[in-house]
């Protein structure tokens, strides 16, 4: 493993220290790594002068980084090393026009022209509309029918196209096509002043404002050598857990609503709002926007806010437990949840699922435990008991995480108050020719940002990865041989981000 450099979460590494190996060796190292319980955190291309480099951040129980240089094309890692590389390679092909030769299904990810001026790998004409331009996978036969859903949906949700190949009510194959919300966030970040980075990162996925922004701010802090006061770290940790609570509770309510079991849907809907209101108490925004900034938090948490949060959690905990009992003890609900949309451990491992979806399939990976940031090193980890990989497990993991998050916040608030100063945004000088990767356990799972600076300390490449990038494939696989009428339920049990994927 000498070809890999061990790094820490949020640790600045001079770029010349990153091992640069030739492609055949790169291929061998990565292939070996993912075969031995290794996963990919980031895998992306960036230009260095006239050349293109591929950089990979890998994880097992530790984080590693390695890079290589490629020409116009390279042998596909998806073909040789497995499905974990699938979307990453397609993304690289789309962003920089580098072709992974032999990729089993080279298809665009977000439908946009590449940034390098190379000829388009997919042969697309980007002046025409998206639908119909995709080479959809098709099952043929007289009994097969195709159902296309979206990109415009019935509810107030984000756009995405789902193409089902069905035999009667049974889904043989689901193809998910996203990209309708591609805004070019990564490229935009390299062109705007540093003070706008956190604001943009809060908008990567509106429901993960704190998760993404935390990654961004930690990266800036690392590159600028900023220290964060412990008190501010406590606030950030609480904010991240509140975000998790609000979303998980909303998800359980929505799962309940999807099987037409109304009472918990209504109760959870209200309780979700209570947690959003606690974020409002912390920073004046229900989604926690403008709270986290490089160096700390913009609003110090005072004694009164601590009391409000404590009182609210005490009040809601019992209610949450009761509504959870109502939901999980209704046998008609269990009949819908159990054995529906199963992703078994082997498959989840093959795809590299992260977050609650991964844990529900038995992959015990939690950034808070493996690569702790903020206050997580002092806090207890969570173990999930339901690991069958079905809708029930994914719901159960959420339930366990809700209780766990309540415990964490109470534990943090039980500690004596640590005074901390609010910070203000400022342009900071970043370490030149450096590399940093930050990971946080957002409510959907591993959120990761990767920053590369050039010799002047300017931003060379900003790479964002939302957990949804790993997990969308999991949803597609969960639908295999399921009833098409169970799709909304499976979809909700994953509840992945469209805009976080589309960037």
């Amino acid at each position, binding site marked *: 493993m000498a070809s890999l450099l061990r790094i820490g979460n949020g640790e600045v590494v001079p770029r010349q220290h990153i091992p640069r190996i030739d492609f055949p060796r790169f291929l061998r190292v990565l292939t070996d790594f993912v075969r031995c319980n290794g996963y990919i955190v980031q895998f992306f291309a960036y230009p260095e002068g006239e050349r293109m480099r591929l950089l990979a951040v890998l994880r097992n129980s530790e984080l590693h980084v390695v890079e290589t240089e490629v020409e116009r094309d390279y042998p596909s890692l998806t073909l040789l090393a497995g499905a974990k590389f699938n979307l990453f390679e397609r993304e690289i092909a789309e962003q920089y026009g580098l072709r992974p030769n032999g990729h089993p299904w080279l298809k665009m990810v977000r439908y946009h022209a590449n940034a390098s001026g190379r000829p388009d790998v997919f042969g697309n004409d980007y002046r025409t509309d998206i639908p119909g331009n995709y080479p959809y996978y098709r099952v043929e036969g007289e009994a097969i*029918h195709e159902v*296309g859903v979206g990109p415009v949906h019935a509810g107030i949700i984000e756009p995405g196209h789902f193409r089902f190949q069905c035999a009667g*009510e049974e889904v043989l194959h689901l193809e998910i096509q996203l990209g309708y919300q591609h805004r070019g966030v990564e490229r935009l970040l390299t062109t705007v002043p540093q003070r706008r980075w956190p604001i943009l990162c809060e908008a990567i996925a509106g429901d993960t404002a704190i998760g993404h922004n935390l990654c961004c701010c930690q990266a800036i802090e690392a590159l600028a050598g900023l220290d964060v006061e412990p008190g501010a770290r406590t606030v950030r940790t609480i904010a991240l857990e509140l975000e998790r609570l609000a979303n998980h509770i909303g998800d359980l309510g929505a799962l309940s609503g999807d*099987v037409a079991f*109304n009472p918990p849907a*209504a109760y959870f809907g209200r309780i979700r709002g209570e947690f959003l209101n606690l974020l409002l108490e912390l920073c004046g925004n229900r989604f926690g926007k403008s709270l986290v900034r490089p160096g700390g938090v913009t609003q110090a948490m005072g004694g009164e806010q601590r009391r409000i949060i404590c009182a609210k959690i005490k009040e809601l905990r019992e209610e949450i437990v009761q509504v959870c009992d109502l939901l999980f003890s209704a046998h*008609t609900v269990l009949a*819908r949840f159990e054995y529906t949309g199963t992703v078994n451990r082997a498959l989840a491992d093959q795809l590299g699922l992260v977050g609650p979806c991964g844990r529900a399939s038995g992959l015990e990976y939690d950034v808070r435990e493996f690569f702790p940031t903020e206050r997580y090193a002092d806090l207890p980890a969570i173990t999930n008991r339901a690991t069958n990989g079905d809708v029930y497990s994914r719901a159960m993991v959420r339930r366990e995480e809700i209780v766990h998050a309540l415990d964490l916040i109470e534990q943090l608030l039980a500690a004596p108050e640590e005074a901390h100063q609010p910070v203000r945004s400022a342009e900071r000088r970043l370490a030149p020719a450096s590399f940093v990767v930050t990971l946080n356990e957002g409510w959907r799972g591993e959120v990761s940002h990767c920053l590369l600076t050039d010799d002047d300390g300017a931003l060379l490449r900003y790479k964002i990865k939302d957990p949804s990038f790993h997990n969308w494939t999991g949803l597609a696989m969960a639908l295999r041989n399921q*009833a098409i009428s169970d799709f909304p339920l499976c979809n909700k049990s994953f509840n992945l981000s469209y805009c976080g994927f589309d960037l």
Partner: protein
Amino acid sequence: MESVLSFGLALVLAPLFPGIILKVKALFAGKQGPPLLIKYWTLAKLLRKGSVYSTSTSFVFRLGPLVACATAIAALLFFPFAGKAPLVSFHGDVIVLFYLLGLGRFFTIAAALDTGSPFEGMGAAREAFFGTLAEAAIFAVLILFFRLNGSLILAGYFTGNQPIAIAGPQGALLILAVVALFMLLLAENSRVPVDDPATHLELTMIHEVMILDHSGPDLALIELGAFYKLFLYAALIASLLKPAGLAGPFAGTLAFYALMAVVYVAIGITESLTARLKMNMVPKYILTSFALVFFAIILTVEIA
């Protein structure tokens, strides 16, 4: 005259009762819920709107709502509300009644298929399949009633000297029929646990997905037809539940509508307490109702 009045009353009151379901469900969810008259407002709103027609549809699409509503109204003509003589009645009218509803379903399905949408085709397939199974159960109920009463006239079941009622001599048997009819009511009127009238998820819908493309007055007709169909099924159950000895025209009508309200409240409670069935469990559910009635029929053989 009395028959016309009771028929008119039924037509006017039918949209009131689904409001009760919504109210009950809202109470279970800790909400205030919409006003009881919400369905009247909805109808008024829809009737004021224009309709939008896809260019890929033909006259079949426009015929669907008309036929669905007309057949549901026609079916009510045969019903002896609160024991009053119906407007139309003849030997074998029960069979006509249920095939009238079948005709309405046929045109709804045809209109759905006419749009060419994969969603609506899926809904139509489900409706046709589940409807076929439900028909078997309905006819089992009719066989049971025939065995109890020897009549093939709907009015004959619930009027006269020996009405079929839970309070009557074969009451214990009829409990099975009431339960089966209630299950069928839920299945045939797209209620939970078979269908979810409140969902926005097309892939899970049965009835709602077939009418996605209808709008304005057409949708109002479909809704109205659905209210009447539900009313008919609820009236069947209410008539079975009706206690004997309420002779007066006023008291009888009042008791009948009170029982109707009870049936609708029961629907609301059922919908609040249960989740939907998996789609592949629906046939089992419908066949369970069939089995219950079939069992009741076997018991009548023993009695005879």
